[in-house]
């Protein structure tokens, strides 16, 4: 039972290790961590002696505390140790590295590691991400504490329990999450996007790669254009295609337009034909026009069906389309003849024909209309969406108020659309 109670890793680093005769066999250099149940534990201590690394297995340790560390072995009996990339070393791989604190959506650093005795083993119980950890590493924790005590204040502990830690991948020890992967999917996409854009590219890509398709699609639409391109380029074209398919066509077109032509083409080839056509259609419009803003997925019904029938169809059709504010009424030639708000459709007499309840005073724009003109129109008439019709009066798409908000309050580094 070498470890009783608890201690911090920094309290044993560089401490001498004694053999039964009281000779120093080496100084603590690092600790080899292996998986344990329920928490990871220390399998061996790596010692540093005369420019050589030695390995001291946990079973060979006699005493392990802040004050004394000793072994059953005699000096010279310890085997030497070669540094290996695949080993997880507590000091080399965890200390000072970044941790994504998912709950606070911020990035902290592992200042220290808290160990605790559990059935004779030393388990990693928590990571210290607070001021105390820094002060302890600097060797001034006690001093600062008593200094602050005279002012009647205290340094708070800031520990993250190891049960919340989730290394992203065994090789990539630089980053860990404070929640499990399932919980990552529960995060708001905008928060996820913020995390991805705050960490270095490699780690962001690893995080992104681990998301399920749907979450990835949501997070991707929230990212800034250049980050979007980076993330898409970092994954397999097939997976990229699945993610892009999941997105709204207008967001998908925005992502593809920022990619190099060859990459975008390859991804488009993997996308289902119908979706690919929708996206390609959008790619042909200028960026700052209605065509560039619009979504070409919308709901359109003929005028000669009843409100009841329309509502039934809507339940099925609307699954694919978001957001929906209006139902468009189009004739056989796909010409827009009227619009119907959802409210009107639900409140109407179920037996009435759409032709009788729709609004025919239409406010529409063409694909070439400037985006600011669209914004003015939406603002002036208090619309939540405006249909886009081409010169023949055929409905081409819809611009919703959330698209316009992005125009009025652009995110940094507004995209430039280019044809694929």
């Amino acid at each position, binding site marked *: 039972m070498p470890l009783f109670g608890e201690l911090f890793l920094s309290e044993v680093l560089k401490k001498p290790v004694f053999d039964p005769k009281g000779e120093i066999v080496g100084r603590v250099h690092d600790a080899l961590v292996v998986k344990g149940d329920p928490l990871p534990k220390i399998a061996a201590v790596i010692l540093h002696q005369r420019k050589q690394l030695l390995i001291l297995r946990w079973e060979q340790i006699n005493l392990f505390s802040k004050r004394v560390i000793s072994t059953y072995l005699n000096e010279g009996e310890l085997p030497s140790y070669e540094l290996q990339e695949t080993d997880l070393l507590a000091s080399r791989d965890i200390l000072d590295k970044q941790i994504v604190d998912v709950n606070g959506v911020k990035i902290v*650093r592992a200042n220290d590691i808290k160990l605790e005795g559990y059935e004779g083993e030393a388990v990693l119980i928590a990571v210290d991400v607070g001021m105390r950890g820094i002060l302890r590493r600097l060797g001034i924790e006690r001093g600062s504490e008593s200094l602050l005590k005279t002012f009647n204040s205290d340094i708070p502990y800031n520990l993250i329990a190891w049960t919340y830690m989730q290394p992203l991948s065994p090789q990539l020890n630089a980053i860990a999450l404070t929640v499990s992967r399932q919980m990552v999917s529960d995060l708001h996409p905008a928060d996820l996007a913020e995390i991805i854009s705050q960490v270095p590219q490699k780690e962001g890509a690893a995080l992104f790669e681990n998301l399920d398709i749907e979450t990835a699609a949501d997070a991707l639409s929230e990212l800034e254009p250049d980050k979007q391109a980076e993330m898409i380029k970092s994954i397999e074209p097939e997976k990229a295609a699945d993610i892009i398919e999941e997105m709204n066509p207008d967001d998908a077109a925005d992502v593809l337009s920022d990619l190099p032509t060859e990459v975008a083409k390859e991804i488009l080839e993997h996308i289902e034909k119908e979706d690919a056509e929708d996206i390609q259609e959008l790619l042909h419009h200028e960026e700052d026009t209605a065509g560039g803003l619009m979504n070409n997925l919308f709901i359109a019904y003929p005028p000669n069906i009843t409100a009841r029938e329309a509502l039934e169809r809507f339940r099925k059709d609307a699954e694919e389309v978001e957001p929906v504010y209006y139902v468009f009424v189009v004739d056989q030639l796909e010409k827009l003849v009227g619009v119907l708000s959802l409210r009107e459709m639900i409140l109407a007499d179920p037996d009435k024909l759409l032709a009788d309840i729709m609004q025919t005073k239409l406010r529409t724009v063409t694909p070439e209309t400037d985006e600011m003109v669209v914004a003015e129109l939406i603002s002036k008439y208090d619309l939540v969406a405006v249909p886009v019709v081409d010169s023949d009066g055929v409905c081409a798409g819809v611009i919703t108020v959330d698209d316009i908000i992005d125009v009025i309050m652009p995110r940094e580094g507004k995209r430039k659309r280019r044809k694929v």
Partner: protein
Amino acid sequence: MRGFWKKALLFLTVMGPGIITANIDNDASGITTYSVVGARFGYSLLWTLIPVTAALIVVQEMVARMGVVTGKGLADLIREEFGVKAAFYLLLGLFIANFGNTVANFAGWAASMQILGLSKYAMVPIGAAAIWLLVVKGSYRIIENVLLVACLIFVGYIISGIMAKPDWLEVGKSLVVPDIKWDAEYLILAVGIIGTTITPWMQFYMQSSIAEKGIKKEDYRLTRLDVIVGCSITDIVSFFIIVTCATLLYPHGIRVEDASEAAIALQPLAGNYAALIFSIALANASILGAIIVPLATAYYICEAMGWEAGVNKSFKEAPQFMGIYTLIIGAAAAIILIPGAPLVDLMVLSAIVNGLMLPFVLVFIIKLINNKKIMGDYTNSRAYNIISWSTVTVVAVLTVLFVVASVFPIA
């Protein structure tokens, strides 16, 4: 031809960090050094600019490469590879040195405003408030645009240098033929040029801005060009400052102590325009430095310590970040306004801390760039290591000598 334009366009999107960093390098203390050098020794120190530029390029290229490859700042890498102690003491040093730099910049701002006939008691608080608001309320995009425009004002020095009508033949000769004088003041100023050109904080700033810009490895060659162009521009500006003062002040034996004295001294000799250009450019350089230095300092400290940082965070979200930033600006502005504050002592301290830190920073840079785990295939080649180690050794030894000379003045 099409290929050329495509490349030119790509360069324009990648450039920025190198050029902005280089321009900010010519802050109030840099301009002071060059003015003093020109007025005291004429053209005879011009030759130092070529080796200094080369050394600057060697160092900045490595830092830029690390930014591109790792996507992390220098403070982050030092914390992750050398631990919290190294990072803490280095950043503490950086904090002290940069506080001194900020004071120097506010002093430059105050002096240039006084030449323009504006009271420092009004202009220093206004300047400090404007800088503070820019960061606390503004966005990164506004800041970058302000910086790029401000960089253009440095052209003023080039114009004044040409207007001074120097003897170009002699200037050219002094630039390439070293004219070493075994005079203590001459040698100290020569080393001082290195000290103001290659500074520790610049390396941190450069790597962070490249990492933030997210430049890809494939575009690294363009970043290298950005570094070379940026470093050259810095020293072209320095060159013209020295030439102006050397042509107009040196023949009359006018000694100046700082950049604003140079501007005043220029007035009777070169007319109002030269003095005006000098004071506006000094004001510009000072305020630029006063924006960037505190901001950068707050960033590195928070990143390395794992504290929340960012221009668009509130005081409550990022208390350490905003606290450090506010403290530096507030205290620096206050020191300028308090009569009898130990201004000179503080600048000397700042120069000494800078000089002591530089060797450490440079050694960290070389160790990091040769770390295969971090840099992969982008480590230094053997030949490049010989160049960089010798550059670093020479620069480090000279700066330490400079520190010794500042602590035990010979003259």
